[in-house]
């Protein structure tokens, strides 16, 4: 452009200076609301469009690894055993939860709620892939897919001629994931459970209160190591996909759940390595900070509720006041200035004996108060205090509602459903996670995959079905 044609900056549209540009920007809160826009995920593209994955998985750990991909847009084919389905569909909680009739042939057998959030947005087919008759069908799916995740005992798929060693010959770009308990090594035949992961990784030994306080090693009530390890597999898969873009080659990922859980030990292992110290449990308090823990209050927030989880349990508060000024203020609020005089230094109050005295004083102060009273008093004093929420309160939390973390969704098959998992995994402005459906009945997509995608005639599908192959 010639100099004389150039439009002076004053006459150009838009801000004229950096200050004006900054002034024109919407407040950050509004900006976030606009770019993330919870509830309108379906209008945006998906990040993993074009990726197709096979899921020969069961329970929570490995299914969740694949569900993460499907929520980000990958096309996932979940392969279940004919007539049975994923064992997780039969569990959790037992007896009462009738989520959906398991199968048309067993209309009175209810399906549990445990597999919710584990297989989101996936297509469900049935196949007994270890049968010789189905080998070619399985290999055809492999040729058309980017990867597979399985959870059988190590070597099982190898025995069935469908391990990475075999599959890379028919699809060199194939990414193969084995996820399970121990992996190769001395405990190669060891199976996997979440509780086993928490125990064998040493995690349970540092969870809960010490025996001196009436405590024991504690596992988390939910299967947190299943969810955590599954997500770590997804991280490995995304790295493998990136590697494949650069090299054109697939990868084998071998993922031991107990190995993954050791990461949660934090500084425990290096501490042992340096000093030979075995870390102890310290329950609801903190070994590095004080006050920074959970205390019990005397009165429930729901004294008249029928449900004991509300009537008796809604009494716990997280309190944090470890900085000198905050601790001083806390001592003032609970009328124990003597504690401030005694423990003015951070390192004094973090000592075990000091913590016992300080938390005891806090709980004595809270003994005639309800949880919400304690939170109100401490918050007004400028201290950090939050009630320990239960499921009902998480559901009612305006914070989660506004951000779309918890939401109602009308599942196309199961009807009205309260969902959290997909939308609790972070917000992406351009390619957000989404949930089209939670899971599908056993064999729901047999025709879609075998006929429409692989091209097998309907008569063939019906024959397989009669023979119990699918």
């Amino acid at each position, binding site marked *: 452009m010639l100099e004389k044609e150039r439009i002076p900056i004053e006459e150009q549209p838009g801000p004229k200076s950096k200050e004006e540009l900054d002034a024109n920007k919407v407040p950050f809160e509004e900006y976030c609301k606009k770019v993330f826009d919870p509830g309108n995920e379906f209008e945006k593209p998906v990040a993993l469009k074009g990726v197709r994955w096979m899921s020969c998985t069961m329970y929570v750990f490995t299914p969740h690894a694949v569900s993460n991909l499907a929520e980000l847009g990958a096309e996932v084919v979940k392969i279940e055993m004919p007539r049975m389905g994923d064992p997780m569909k039969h569990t959790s*909680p037992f007896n009462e939860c009738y989520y959906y009739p398991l199968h048309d042939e067993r209309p009175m057998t209810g399906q549990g709620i445990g597999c919710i959030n584990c297989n989101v947005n996936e297509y469900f087919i049935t196949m007994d892939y270890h049968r010789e008759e189905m080998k070619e069908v399985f290999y055809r799916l492999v040729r058309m897919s980017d990867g597979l995740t399985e959870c059988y005992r190590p070597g099982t798929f190898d025995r069935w001629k469908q391990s990475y060693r075999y599959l890379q010959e028919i699809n060199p770009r194939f990414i193969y994931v084995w996820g399970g308990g121990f992996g190769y090594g001395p405990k190669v035949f060891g199976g996997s459970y979440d509780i086993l992961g928490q125990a064998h990784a040493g995690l349970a030994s540092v969870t809960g209160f010490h025996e001196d306080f009436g405590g024991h090693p504690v596992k988390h009530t939910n299967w947190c190591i299943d969810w955590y390890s599954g997500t770590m597999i997804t991280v490995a898969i995304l790295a493998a996909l990136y590697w494949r873009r650069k090299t054109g080659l697939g990868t084998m990922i071998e993922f031991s759940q107990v190995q993954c859980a050791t990461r949660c030990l934090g500084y425990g292992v290096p501490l042992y390595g340096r000093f030979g110290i075995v870390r102890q449990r310290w329950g609801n308090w903190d070994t590095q900070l004080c006050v920074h823990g959970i205390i019990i209050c005397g009165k429930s927030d729901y004294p008249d509720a029928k449900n004991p989880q509300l009537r008796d349990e809604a009494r716990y508060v997280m309190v944090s006041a470890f900085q000198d000024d905050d601790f001083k203020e806390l001592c003032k609020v609970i009328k124990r200035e003597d504690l401030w005089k005694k423990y003015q230094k951070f390192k004094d109050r973090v000592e075990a004996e000091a913590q016992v005295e300080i938390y005891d004083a806090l709980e004595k102060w809270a003994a005639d108060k309800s949880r919400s009273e304690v939170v109100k008093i401490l918050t007004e004093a400028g201290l950090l205090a939050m009630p320990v929420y239960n499921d009902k309160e998480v559901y009612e939390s305006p914070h989660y509602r506004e951000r779309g973390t918890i939401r*109602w969704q009308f599942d*196309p098959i199961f009807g009205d459903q*309260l969902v959290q998992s997909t939308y609790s995994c972070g917000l992406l402005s351009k390619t957000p996670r989404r949930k089209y459906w939670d899971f599908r*009945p056993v064999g729901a997509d*047999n025709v879609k995959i*075998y006929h429409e995608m692989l091209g097998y005639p309907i008569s063939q599908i*019906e024959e397989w*079905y009669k023979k119990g192959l*699918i």
Partner: protein
Amino acid sequence: MCDIIWCKKCDTVNYLDPFNFWNWEGKIKCAGCGTVYYIHMIQGHMYRGPEERPGEEPDILPLYADKPNQGYEKILPGTPGKTRPYNCLPREIYLGRADHRKFSIRGYPMRAWAPQPPSAGIAGSHGFKWDIEKLSPEVWQEFLEKKKKGEVKDW
């Protein structure tokens, strides 16, 4: 471990479940005859007591009691005035059978009852839409009525 107070007056064994009494000092009422006993436990060991405290109010009731010398008569948890209720259940209510529901807590239809008309096609394949009006017209009608009454909410 689980310590006990064996009341010699009425031959009743009052069971003290470990977590409540691991480190505990206070008074417990015998589920059999109502005698109040004082105990002080440290680390799960009976440090003091049981000592009778006639005329004093108990702090807590035992969870369970029985009479082994009298044909194992049981006083189950939650017997009013004798034992305290057992609240340590993972859920408030246990039915022990499938709990069929047609509507969620906000009043929208759910497909969670039996029996339902078969809806799978070839080789178990399902469509992507629950055509509630067609497949379950009575539930749809019930839903419309609930809506009219204002029983259907957003949250």
